[in-house]
């Protein structure tokens, strides 16, 4: 290591052979993650027409019956099909995760780009707003909003979306600051392009790529946040959700003794989903960061 300066300049001069395609650079793990995520999304979206047991049907199995053929994840404490519950739970968890990030990106992304582009007092105000939002204990803010506005998919996504605004906005602002100084933006400005045109045509495409990594990571966070709300008993009214499912199965010593599978299966699925989102996001960031450096 200490001799890196001795050897590395020599090594780096070897001209890189054809750079591998982006798909290759992302690696096998990335595509496995995407595959898992797509499978979950597919199952969730098509749950109503897939040959699944009705997740609300009780006494499909006996109380906390273990996994068996036809009841792959076993039954929960009211005899419901845990597999079916997990798939249906994905619907709300993924939907909320997606909507929250959408809201965060629309609001935070816009504010961040505008403040990074125009600077001045607007930037100051927006930056302070971001700092304030970040200083707010996030989960408590979400709980407050949800309790006050109502436990519907929209309001829960909205409250989690608010949490996403500051981090998304900060990144968008930082990226805008970087690109606003670049020649192509200056050139466009000299040519007399309108601000709106510069932002949409020149800045947006460049800001979006690093943000896509954040979107995946953010979805993971939003899914966890929704699960947390559900676990605390304050997510979507009457809806099925991973957090609620895990709470139901995991909050009684006796249930955990008699049928840990009812908790462990959804835990495993949440874990894999978040892991895959994190991993895919990380890979995108690494690959595009490297590209960014090469520019």
């Amino acid at each position: 290591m200490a001799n890196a300066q001795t050897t590395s300049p020599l090594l780096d001069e070897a001209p890189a052979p054809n750079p591998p395609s982006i798909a290759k650079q992302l690696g096998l793990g990335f595509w496995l993650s995407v595959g898992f995520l797509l499978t979950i999304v597919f199952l969730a979206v098509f749950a109503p027409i897939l040959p699944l047991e009705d997740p609300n049907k009780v006494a499909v199995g006996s109380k906390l019956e273990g996994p068996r053929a036809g009841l792959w994840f076993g039954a929960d404490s009211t005899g419901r099909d845990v597999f079916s519950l997990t798939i249906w739970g994905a619907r709300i968890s993924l939907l909320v995760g997606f909507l929250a990030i959408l809201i965060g990106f629309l609001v935070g992304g816009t504010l961040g780009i505008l403040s990074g582009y125009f600077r001045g007092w607007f930037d100051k105000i927006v930056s302070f707003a971001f700092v304030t939002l970040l200083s707010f204990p996030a989960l408590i803010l979400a709980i407050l909003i949800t309790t006050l506005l109502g436990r519907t998919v929209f309001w829960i996504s909205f409250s989690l979306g608010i949490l996403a605004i500051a981090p998304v906005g900060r990144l968008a602002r930082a990226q805008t600051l970087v690109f606003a100084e670049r020649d192509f933006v200056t050139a466009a400005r000299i040519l007399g392009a309108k601000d709106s045109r510069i932002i949409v045509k020149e800045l947006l495409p460049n800001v979006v790529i690093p943000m896509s990594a954040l979107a995946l990571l953010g979805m993971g966070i939003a899914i966890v946040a929704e699960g947390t709300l559900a676990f605390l008993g304050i997510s979507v009214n009457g809806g099925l959700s991973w957090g609620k499912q895990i709470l139901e199965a995991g909050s009684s010593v006796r249930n955990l003794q008699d049928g840990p599978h009812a908790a462990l299966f959804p835990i495993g699925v949440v874990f894999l989903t978040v892991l895959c989102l994190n991993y895919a996001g990380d890979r995108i960031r690494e690959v595009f960061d490297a590209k960014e450096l090469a520019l």
Partner: protein
Amino acid sequence: MALLEVNELAVTFNTPKGPVYAVSDVSFAVDKGQALGIVGESGSGKSVTVKSLMGLLPRTAKIDGSAQYEDVDVFNMSKDRRKHFYGVDIAMVFQNPMTSLNPVKRIGEQLMEGMRFHRGLSRDAAKSRAIELLDLVRIPDPTKRLSQYPHELSGGMRQRVVIAMALANDPALLIADEPTTALDVTVQRDILDLLDSLRRELDMALILITHDLGVVRDRTDSIAVMYGGRVMETATTEEVFADTEHPYTQALQRAIPDMSMPRGTRLDPIPGSPPDLAITPVSCPFAPRCTFATDECRTSIPPLSAVPGSETHRYACFHPQGLVAAASTVGGEA
């Protein structure tokens, strides 16, 4: 009897792109209390050579050859011997005093920890020894320095501290790796003179590594010139300057800064750049830049040959300049 004797040292790095032959077939020796200068451009392998001796190379480095320090086989030391070898028998001064002091630790702490670890000195004993050392390297107001952080000292001061650290356990051999390169020109000389006088005062052997042949001229007993990971020429200092054999050494001589030159003048004496060590060596490494190179130089590696009549002077060149000149003079006379 040499204090340190290095024989046919070779260091190879295994990298994903294949092996890199950083050092090949390097031999030299230092006697007790003597000073050896290792001279070469960056990339010549001089730093890798001493780092291998200091055990500072990464695990990816493959070391061949031997290094004998008194009765110790440096590359195959027992664990117990190793525990109190570096920093006690051999110590080292690094190139950049700005980065070789830990920025978050006080000077005193950094000075004292070596002696406390190796000699088990008490805090008080270590402290008075540290003051003594700072005094030795001519740092004014040593007591105050102990509680200062590195960033509060100038570059020259820091290098003195680094030297003091190295001297903490009275090493028999001090290796100084380009100790002045990173310093302001005005203090370079002070540091070099300090090293020289310390060596004499403490009767300590010194290996002084530099790219500047001028630096070693008055301060060493012998010199090894390295290029492309190989020793090009080795001799007593006197011999090198009196009877330069290798064209590379000649080039280095021409590059010795002249005090009359304006400050900041860049010396770029040798056209071309150092060789790619990733290629299996089959030729004289200096051949591409050598004005005297012949086909022979490009197809085979010149062995280290002795200058007739000298036990100490050896060179690796098919066209030894001193001998050729002598021969032509002789021939001319004949």
